[in-house]
């Protein structure tokens, strides 16, 4: 240990945290800010700042890792205490001279692209953007600190008025769910799973992945685009998803539609198949714990180009693939792989996670996350109503594109995150129009 006392260690990163840390390193190597996730609540008016500040303070006291510094000790990384706790809550006011929409875009752009050393950056920050008619509560976290579901729990914590109910969050305290799941296997079962996982990846890697953009340009900044569907459109999408992929794979419908939209946009892009990683959460649905840390395992949806071109065949393929993966326990096969990966250097682990074996080609055609239907009461935010939500996340280049979906107040929100100048707003607009037509079943 260099310069860090043992008693300063709060937590060791779990294998899923290390997975996100390897991606953080890859994104930083691209010259971008790092692996940050962002979750925004659009509010009806200026909230009760005092209550908000008190709850944020209380949250950081209950979960001190929110104030920690990420430090490497030997091969592993740890959340460690720091002498000067970072500021977690920031307020940004729109100057009278500036257009509100421009102010919001500019401020969020600055927050998501802010570059800071991993050791000094705060694990999580809360930003309140206020202007006469627009108010946004914007949360940005460093991915090893928590996953999207954890961020959702943290926001729910801040939105819970009753102190007794707030105390229920984070209880019972458990070890990381990734470790708990790994513990269920005997050592030979772990080895068997690890080999199964390796074979699964090799099969995926036999088809070169199609990339959405030409990545020759140097990545400069993350941009994002938010598109919200009406309640009627959302209802139609949900009904079509159920028709096409049934109750067992709503996320697959979004993935399939995006694959088809990308194929229509660039039918000549090299490669044999679209491949999208997505995570599944090990937390029980509706559980209020664990609040921090990543508790996910990875899955892939992959479809050869000729199948993507046929809508019916594509959804049947994705559905069958998903069933097969779960039936053969390939979803859990990533757990021992993540454990093994956490012993590698970040650079080596990052390459293994991203590149197809034996080539230097990117495995992922895009990053995908479906947050699902959010159940946060609209009137729960201190002093303001939650009107809508949206997300953004930093992504490696390639693929330079991440797609996040969620439904709040019966409206589907599609959040496109993309790296400029590799992707640009005009391309994303075109991609969105094609995706929307697919989602609504209106594509030719």
């Amino acid at each position, binding site marked *: 240990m260099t310069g860090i006392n043992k008693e300063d260690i709060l937590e060791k990163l779990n294998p899923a945290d290390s997975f996100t840390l390897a991606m953080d390193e890859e994104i930083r190597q691209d010259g971008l800010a790092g692996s940050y996730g962002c979750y925004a609540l659009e509010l009806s008016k200026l909230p009760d700042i005092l209550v908000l500040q008190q709850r944020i303070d209380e949250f950081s006291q209950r979960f001190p890792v929110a104030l920690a510094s990420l430090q490497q000790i030997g091969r592993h990384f740890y959340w460690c205490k720091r002498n000067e706790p970072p500021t977690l809550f920031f307020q940004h006011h729109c100057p009278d001279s500036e257009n509100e929409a421009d102010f919001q875009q500019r401020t969020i752009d600055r927050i998501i692209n802010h570059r800071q050393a991993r050791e000094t950056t705060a694990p999580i920050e809360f930003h309140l953007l206020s202007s006469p008619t627009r108010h946004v509560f914007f949360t940005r976290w460093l991915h090893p600190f928590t996953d999207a579901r954890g961020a959702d729990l943290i926001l729910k914590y801040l939105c819970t008025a009753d102190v007794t109910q707030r105390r229920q969050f984070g209880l019972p305290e458990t070890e990381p769910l990734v470790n708990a799941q790994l513990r269920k296997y005997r050592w030979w079962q772990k080895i068997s799973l690890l080999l199964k996982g390796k074979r699964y990846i090799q099969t995926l890697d036999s088809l070169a992945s199609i990339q959405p953009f030409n990545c020759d340009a140097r990545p400069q900044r993350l941009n994002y685009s938010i598109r919200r569907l009406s309640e009627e459109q959302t209802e139609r999408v949900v009904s079509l998803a159920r028709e096409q992929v*049934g109750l*067992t794979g709503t996320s697959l419908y979004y993935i399939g539609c995006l694959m088809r939209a990308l194929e229509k946009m660039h039918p000549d892009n090299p490669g044999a198949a679209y491949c999208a990683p997505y995570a*599944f959460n090990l937390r*029980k*649905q*509706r559980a*209020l714990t664990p609040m921090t840390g990543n508790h996910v395992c990875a899955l892939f949806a992959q479809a050869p180009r000729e199948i993507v071109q046929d809508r019916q065949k594509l959804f049947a393929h994705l*559905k069958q693939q*998903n069933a097969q993966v779960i039936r053969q326990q390939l979803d859990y096969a990533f757990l021992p792989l993540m454990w093994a990966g956490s012993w590698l250097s970040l650079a080596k682990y990052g390459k293994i996670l991203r590149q197809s074996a034996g080539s230097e080609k990117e495995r992922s055609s895009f990053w995908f996350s479906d947050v699902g239907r959010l159940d946060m009461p609209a009137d729960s935010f201190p002093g303001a109503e939650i009107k809508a939500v949206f997300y953004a996340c930093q992504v490696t280049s390639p693929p330079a594109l991440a797609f996040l979906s969620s439904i709040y107040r019966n409206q589907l929100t599609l959040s496109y995150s993309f790296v400029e100048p590799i992707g640009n707003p005009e391309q994303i607009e075109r991609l969105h129009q094609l995706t929307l037509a697919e989602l609504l079943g209106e594509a030719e």
Partner: protein
Amino acid sequence: MKKKLRDFIFQELVFVADPRQFSDDDNLLEAGLDSMGIMRLIMFIENEYGVTLPDTEIEPDNVQSFNALEQWILRHQK
């Protein structure tokens, strides 16, 4: 059968504050059983009861409660 289903769902898939208060007719989908959870539940049922549940029957009517699940399994055990 319902006890095993209850143990699996409440231990692995869905959090409810007090499982004893959750009746066999209460709605599992409203309680948070999601698409990934349904898939896992089906694998559990197929392994545990030696049945094959057809994809075409994975509908809310068959998975929305413990009673519905039991009826669905029994239809395929016969």
